[in-house]
């Protein structure tokens, strides 16, 4: 129970923490400040509370596929929000309020998606009296590792020289976004909304998804040991789309510089 708690909580927290860290580092790089985060956190708390309150309705919806479809939608939503964020962050000054709004929404979606899972898991298993200590200790350990890794990712992105800070933040966000689409694909495959396909490769012997590095790569890159052709195609497609968004934003910046 302890290990299960660690793995479940770590996987969810790590993903949200890395996304929050990358967005915070990006905000700092484009001199956006961090106040928007204080709006995102209460919004996310409300979202998690609503998710947990309507869990039964959500689970029963869409012939029992409601929860998976909602989670996949939230992850796809985060990716779709990251695209304009990349464009705006790479373009010249201005439209800061839009960037702030999009970042607030992206963090809210990510936290609702990740924390709702944790909330449901902890509430369900902590109710089993004999396992409560193991569940709480495992959750605390998983959360500690996830948040610490997020803080260190933020520190690492902050330590990148000024010249490379923006590309580093944008590249991290592009990878996280593509990873989220990969996970959304897996969820939809689970409920047969997408066809289940034979894996293209199996790298679990090289790097297990359950190892800490595997979890970290899952959070940052969407690492999947046995991905299907659709997952790989979508992952590459999303990365390309993010690359186009970055290029578009950078072109806007260049044009602005010429006009100036």
């Amino acid at each position: 129970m302890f290990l299960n708690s660690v793995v479940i909580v770590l996987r969810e927290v790590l993903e949200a923490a890395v996304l929050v860290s990358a967005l915070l580092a990006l905000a700092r790089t484009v001199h956006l400040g961090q106040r928007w985060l204080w709006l995102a956190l209460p919004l996310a708390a409300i979202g998690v509370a609503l998710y947990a309150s309507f869990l039964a309705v959500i689970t029963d919806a869409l012939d029992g596929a409601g929860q998976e479809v909602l989670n996949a939608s939230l992850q796809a939503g985060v990716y779709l929000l990251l695209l304009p964020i990349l464009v705006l962050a790479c373009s010249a000054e201005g439209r800061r309020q839009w960037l702030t709004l999009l970042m607030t929404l992206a963090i809210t979606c990510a936290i609702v998606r990740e924390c709702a899972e944790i909330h449901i898991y902890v509430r369900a298993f902590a109710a089993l009296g004999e396992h409560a200590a193991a569940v709480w200790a495992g959750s605390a350990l998983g959360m500690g590792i996830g948040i610490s890794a997020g803080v260190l990712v933020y520190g690492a992105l902050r330590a990148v020289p000024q010249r490379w800070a923006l590309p580093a933040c944008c590249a991290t966000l592009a990878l996280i976004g593509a990873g989220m689409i990969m996970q959304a694909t897996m969820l939809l495959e689970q409920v047969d909304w997408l066809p289940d396909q034979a894996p293209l490769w199996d790298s679990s012997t090289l790097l297990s998804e359950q190892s800490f590095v595997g979890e970290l790569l899952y959070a940052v890159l969407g690492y999947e040991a046995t991905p299907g052709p659709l997952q790989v195609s979508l992952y590459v497609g999303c990365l390309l789309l993010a690359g186009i968004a970055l290029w578009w934003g950078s072109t806007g910046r260049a044009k602005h510089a010429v006009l100036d």
Partner: protein
Amino acid sequence: MNSIRRSLVTMLVAAFTLVSFVAALNGYRASMDKAEALLDAQLQYSAEILVGLGASESSGQTLGGGVEGFVFQIWDGEHPVLRSAAAPESPVTAFEEGYRYANFDGFRWRTLTVSMGGQRWGMVAERADVRHTLAESVVLESVIPLLLWLPVAALLIWVLVGWGLAPLRELSAQINRKASDDLAPLDYADPPTELQQVISSTNGLLLRLAAALQREKHFASHAAHELRTPISALKIHLHNLESEVPAGSSALQHANEGIERMHHLVEQLLDLARTQPELITANFHTTDLHTLAQRVTAELWPAFEARQQSLSLQGEPATMQGDETMLAILIRNLLDNARKYTPAGGEITVFAGYRDGTPTLEVADSGPGIPSSERQRVFERFYRVGARAGEDVSGAGLGLAITQHIVQLHGAQVQLADSPLGSGLAVVVRFPNTAVSV
């Protein structure tokens, strides 16, 4: 994270948490493996006791009672010889020596088969979930304190980082404590390696600054002599020339005006240099602001009278700590400005006394005033307000910059306000109530 301490503590706590938690996780896995091995050894021990008990049994007997989550069986070939009450009638595991896992009675069991010689087999089994929960509860006893003590570790890191940054704080405090005119090198005995370069660079900078200010100081005093002397000589020559040229010569009049302007500019430049807070050491004494204002207005009265301007002084004796020479320059500058920018026949009032309990000087005129948008900029050197600059008023735009210097030197505040006399300007200087230490 603009604070070095906060940033360091956050990163250190994160690194400590990550490493210690991952280590705890590995420790948990290792401890669980060890606990499993211990429980297997205990199972082995139980099996050996069973072998002793069941060696002589020959009929299919069932023993009542027993321990929950533990069953045993003794088989002679395929015939049951002895079994615990909770044990199933069929073999719980294979007839082959060794540990295995098996599923029966709705649970997963850890089983051990031992050979008792011949066709006799002893089988013992423990519920895997009970073993796991037992092992986990023991192992968690060593993990949970790590979680509970994390805040203590974070607090310790906070305190230790604070201690580590103490030399930086001390250096910062030492720089803050320095008076504005104290350009002596920083005195930091045995500085840490990381601060040596900062201290060395700062001291080098202070040294160069002190030398530059000293040069400027020398320039101001030398220039005073070098510039005033030829101007005075020129004035005498022009005075002598008056008797040699026809009366009312416009050339001579222009020359006189030019010399006067140059004299005024030189005096103002010297005042500006003399009043720089970084350059001078003020000589503070108890001074009566009202008496001083009275003296300066009396000195300047003829110039106001020449323009038919009315000049009045109001207020009451106001004692304060100040440099009398500097304060006189300040009052003179404000009065000069008021006189120059107020049209002939206008009105100028001076207030020197207490206002709201603090020593206050106010010079108000009935001139054109200064638009509020430009009021901040008039304190810049050589800045002249657009509307006023076009007027036929001589000046270099240094008067209010000098005023600002003297105000800073006295720790006072200057404010440009609308004049109570109409559209003009009121310059209000509020001095601190207490003695000023510089």
